[in-house]
């Protein structure tokens, strides 16, 4: 059921509980295990526009390090619920651990199939993101907590140190607002040692001798992360090189005085075209965000780094004086293309 009262009937699968969330769509044709475990999707009911989901099942979860998955984007399913078009059936892949529906069931995440996801998508496109509920019950109530404190829910509450297999001699601080594990894997793969700290932890005590800070992606409205914005300001004052990704990009923008706003229906997919304004080069990017930086509010000292070729929205910031970069898209891919993963080498 959608917040405007429309009731969509379908066939339930996975968990049996009533799921409340913001109904959003993604246009990616692969990568459903990655999307479902992406913490940025916390609090959302995810509609897949691609009609066949579950074909290759879900890989057997593998741990790479403490609280770091080798083949998923976090340690659990993050979405509130899943909406698909067809039966989720007969998966086949040599790396499969579980069928898709069993996986959802094992974590009690509700799914609904036999939904016309294309017309639902068109509705969201027309009306903007809606709240919705997936439920097997006739009677239910909206859970007010569904969309509250999302970052706090997905950020790991402890500090973890990660060592790369082959060090490049550099150390980074990672502010975890709900980091996709691919970001961590990218950094480690490039030889950085990484200290992962919770979203609201004061980073200053850890800045001694570090080569840069990465502020991760995460769910919800950037304006709900006041503590992080304050922390970023402190870091920038210390002239520490900084890279913001997705929510991290929006938080940087807020920290330097720009403004953010809610997009009508967000960018969620693996095919978003972005152009590097400074070079003219275009990239296909993986995206998952509902808010954007208002390009008109970009302060002096910063320029627009990337722009979305479809709708002209801001996709990144770069500082003229300091080593500060941010991207609205996900350079790590997973799911999706990693055309822009060179960005991780900037630090």
């Amino acid at each position, binding site marked *: 059921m959608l917040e405007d009262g429309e009731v969509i009937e379908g066939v339930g699968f996975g968990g049996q509980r009533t799921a409340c969330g913001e109904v959003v769509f993604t246009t990616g044709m*692969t990568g459903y295990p990655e999307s479902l475990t992406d913490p940025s999707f916390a609090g959302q009911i995810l509609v897949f526009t691609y009609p066949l989901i579950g074909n290759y099942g879900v890989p057997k979860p593998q741990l790479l390090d403490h609280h770091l998955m080798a083949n998923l984007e976090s340690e659990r399913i993050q979405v509130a619920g899943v909406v698909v078009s067809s039966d989720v059936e007969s998966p086949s892949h040599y790396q499969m651990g579980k069928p898709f529906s069993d996986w959802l069931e094992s974590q009690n995440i509700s799914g609904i199939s036999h939904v016309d996801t294309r017309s639902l998508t068109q509705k969201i496109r027309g009306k903007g993101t809606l709240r919705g509920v997936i439920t097997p019950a006739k009677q239910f109530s909206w859970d007010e907590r569904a969309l509250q404190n999302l970052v706090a829910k997905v950020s790991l509450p402890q500090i973890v140190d990660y060592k790369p297999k082959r060090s490049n001699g550099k150390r980074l601080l990672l502010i975890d607002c709900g980091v996709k594990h691919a970001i961590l894997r990218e950094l480690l793969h490039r030889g950085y040692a990484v200290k992962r700290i919770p979203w609201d932890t004061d980073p200053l005590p850890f800045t001694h001798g570090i080569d840069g800070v990465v502020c991760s992606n995460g769910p919800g409205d950037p304006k709900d992360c006041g503590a992080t914005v304050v922390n970023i300001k402190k870091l920038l004052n210390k002239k520490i090189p900084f890279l913001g990704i997705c929510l991290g990009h929006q938080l940087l923008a807020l920290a330097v005085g720009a403004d953010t706003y809610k997009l009508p229906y967000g960018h969620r997919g693996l095919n978003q075209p972005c152009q590097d304004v400074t070079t003219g080069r275009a990239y296909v990017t993986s995206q998952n965000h509902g808010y954007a930086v208002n390009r008109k509010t970009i302060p002096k000292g910063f320029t627009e780094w990337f722009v979305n070729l479809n709708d002209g929205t801001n996709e990144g910031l770069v500082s003229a004086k300091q080593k500060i970069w941010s991207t609205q898209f996900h350079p790590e891919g997973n799911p999706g293309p990693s055309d822009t993963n060179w960005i991780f080498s900037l630090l």
Partner: protein
Amino acid sequence: MKKILLLGSGALKIGEAGEFDYSGTQAIKALKEEGRDVILVNPNIATIQTSEGLADRVYFLPVTPDFVERVITKERPDAILLSFGGQTALNCGIGLYTKGVLKRNNVEILGTPMATIIDTEDRELFAKRLQRIGLATAKGVTVKSVKEGVAYAETFGYPIMLRTGFALGGTGSGIARSRRELEAILSNAFAATSQVILEECLYGWKEVEYEVMRDCRDNCITVCNMENFDPVGIHTGESVVVAPSQTLNDDEYYQLRQISIDTIRELGIVGECNIQFALHPKTGQYRIIEVNARLSRSSALASKATGYPLAYIAAKLALGKTLPELRNSVTGSTSAFFEPALDYVVVKIPRWDLEKYEGVDPTIGSEMKSVGEVMAIARTFKEAVQKAVRMLGQGYEGVIDEDALRQSRIMLRKRLATPDAKRMFVIGAALARGITVDEIAKLTGIDPWYLSSLERIVFTYQKLKKSKILPRELLAEAKRQGFSDIQIAHLRSTTEDSIRSLRKKLGVKPCVKRIDTMAGEFPAKTNYLYMTYAAGQSDHLPTSKEKKVIVLGSGPYAIGTSVEFDWCAVNTVTTVRDQGKKTVMVNCNPETVSTDYDYSDYLYFEELSLERVLDIYDLEKSPFILSVGGQIPNNLAPKLAACGIPILGSDAKIIEQAENRHIFSKLLDTLGVAQPAWGESHSIRQSVRMARSIGFPILLRPSFVLSGKAMLVIEKEELLVSYLKSLDLDIGKHPLVMTRFLQGAMECDMDGVAKEGRILIWAISEHVEHGGVHSGDATMVLPPHSLPDSVRENIVKNAGAIVATLGVNGPFNIQFLVSDGKPYVIECNLRASRSFPFVSKTLRQNFIRIATQVALGNGVTVPVKKTKPSYVCVKVPQFSFKRLRGADPVLRVEMSSTGEVAAFGVDVHEAYLKALLATGLRFPDKKTVFLSLGGGGGKLSFLAGAACLRRLGFTLFATRGTYEFLNEHNIPSRLVGKLHEGIHPNFVDLLKDKTVGFSVVLPERFTDNTRTEVTKGISDGYIMRRMSIDMGIPIFTNAQSAYLFVESMERYQISDLEIKHWSEYKGE
């Protein structure tokens, strides 16, 4: 850079079909938009790209270095585009480059640089370049002889894969499992090429393709990926292909995507390329199999599958535009630099016509044999695959076919392991007969995901059969899985109509969805539509205010249905649009221009079945034009008429009158128009009696289809009796039609358009070959070169009477035989024929435009009477026998050509020679010819030809009968033995050494097609013909065309052939 030369791909042939009309046409549009002058060389007269109003100049000439060089010298173009005309254009470009023609004339190659083209065409260079950047290609070596190949394989081991460079669609490729197999394939391959690649055998790996684009600023995207349902080992043109990939996870998808981009960057391609991968199903290892640095069949498919106009964008990139500055023409608002997101599944299935050939190997493998393809769009694989199977137009209603179901499990298992053209139905039957998904996966190498989906269809099939009642749920589920009403009706022992009514009553109706390239993220301004049951709401809801006309396209290309019907369909929609009405196009062939979403206002990429056409009518409520898409739409006419649906043009009743042999024959009798004697028999005895009274030879048309053959000629009573006895069918139920076969008769085609029974325009084309050769395989000459005026007048008079009596209101085609100066009507079709583009372009009168104006009933441009043109245009069939291993290349009453070319000339000889060369015929470089002129008529008909060859200084080699015959006529020749004679040199020695310039091997009887049915033996004639094909020796199997060729050689040297563009022939 103002003037650009564009090379087309010539005739449709196996491996190079209509997709290049699509790509060339889009390229021309893109170039014209940018204000360039376009010079097109393409002898394929049936294409849209060679139509008026597209290229500035069209040369109907062979796409070979010699001819194109002369075009370049004449036109002085600034640049050339090589990647839009398939392998033909690319090879020609390589030839021009190596000869230094391009440099000498300062012609710049646009798009991908020549060095890259050469590297991608040479597998060894290609592998080296990719290995340099750390990419994996299949391990292998290039060998230049059979001996060298065997030596390598003996150390590398078997099985081993063979491929040839510089070839379209993998001629001479295959898997050798033993030394013997290897030797056989190698010797075949070396007949066509100088090098063969031996590679590690990747059989059983998944085959995945990516379509990649790159601009001159190094921006790259992949437009689409596609997964072959069949594993590596089955040519992608022979495989069912699914887009996007279904069984790849995100890692695999994006790893291969990244490699695709790395590859295109390394190679420096500008424009589009296709990359084929093998992906190991259990380890995720990959190999790059192939890169096509040009538009290909796959790119046409990707273009239709995604809505991304690949060829159009590639042409813009070749001019130096960049992807970010171009727009997505589907949405109109977003960027062309993006990767389409699909919210549907696309399934392509090849269409084979192997039944049409004698002796052809029915299995499928690494060589291409299919002649066309269909593409189905739906929201589940199940629905898409079942739709696709129906789209083939071969009578299948779904993946479960009763014929296959009747086979034993042993037979099914055998066929699973040795794939043939009926693979899908064998799998369907195997699942229905309880062979497990796992076992089938093992036997076929097909991913279990696909097989499980098919299994679901089988379950539903069984449920439909067994269930006592048909509840809404089951009906809806069956429809979601793509079952047709007929199929359900059959399983429920009821009629299609009653299932349709029931469905409507229960509200089980298909929805219309739009293809927008963005999965709904942005609105589309185009109407590229498909229908599905896996949906709740339609995107497109037609308004009743618009005045629309629905045009049905041709469906898949097949023997007998080719690009000419696409030309007809496109010209029809264009005319309807010009008349201020909206157009709805329905077609399911991804190789066409009619399925470009910008040619019509609404494009339904859909089935041409009665059910689906009625569904579309229910929505669009507009009249149909059925007469321009060939057989499939034409056959729907009576059914649609019976449903009371408005059809524009000739009334369905008169179509029936023209097609019903009894009614039509009576009509001819009333009019006093001659027809060959005929009769219909219901028993063997009656047949014999009837044949006697008609007189042998007779042409038999069984009313049932026997292994695909509809017609055959029988010359003696004994043969008729033994043939009839060999049939285990009840002739009483399936009557036999027999017609007097007029020997040595000239055949003519009359094409025309009539309005309310009055002929508005007509053209008579004369066949070079005598009657008995299918009109689609005949060489046609316009205006006729030897038809006497008196006969022509007679033909026109007869046609006028027929047309008037029937009250024809639209296009028509009447075929005549002329025997002893008297025309006999042999067939009459009230639809556009295959020769419509040929006559329209030759006479510069668009027959389809006029026919469409007639259909719409207003403002017919009455054509100006023209005097007989001062030039001649000759249309020559293109055969693909080289690819159809084992097929007898003899011309018969059943059609076997896959395409056609035409050329203009000052006379029939000049035009014929150009057209023949345009089919790829190598002009004899040696003055030796091999003659085996068969029995009876053949020798006499070619006597003058033999004499002419002597005059030309040819050495004649002849088999005994021919040798003696020539001797009697004082024409010296050298004797060559037949196999049983035991003398050497025999013809095998002669042909194997490739010492002959060309062969003329006429059938022993003119009815050689009865060979296998009646005599079951393999004749020397067959081996001679087949060997000539396999050895790449030009061959003629018909006396008249062979003679015309020899005559033409006597009159013209290649250098005499004029280089003139189309307009120069109309005297502008």
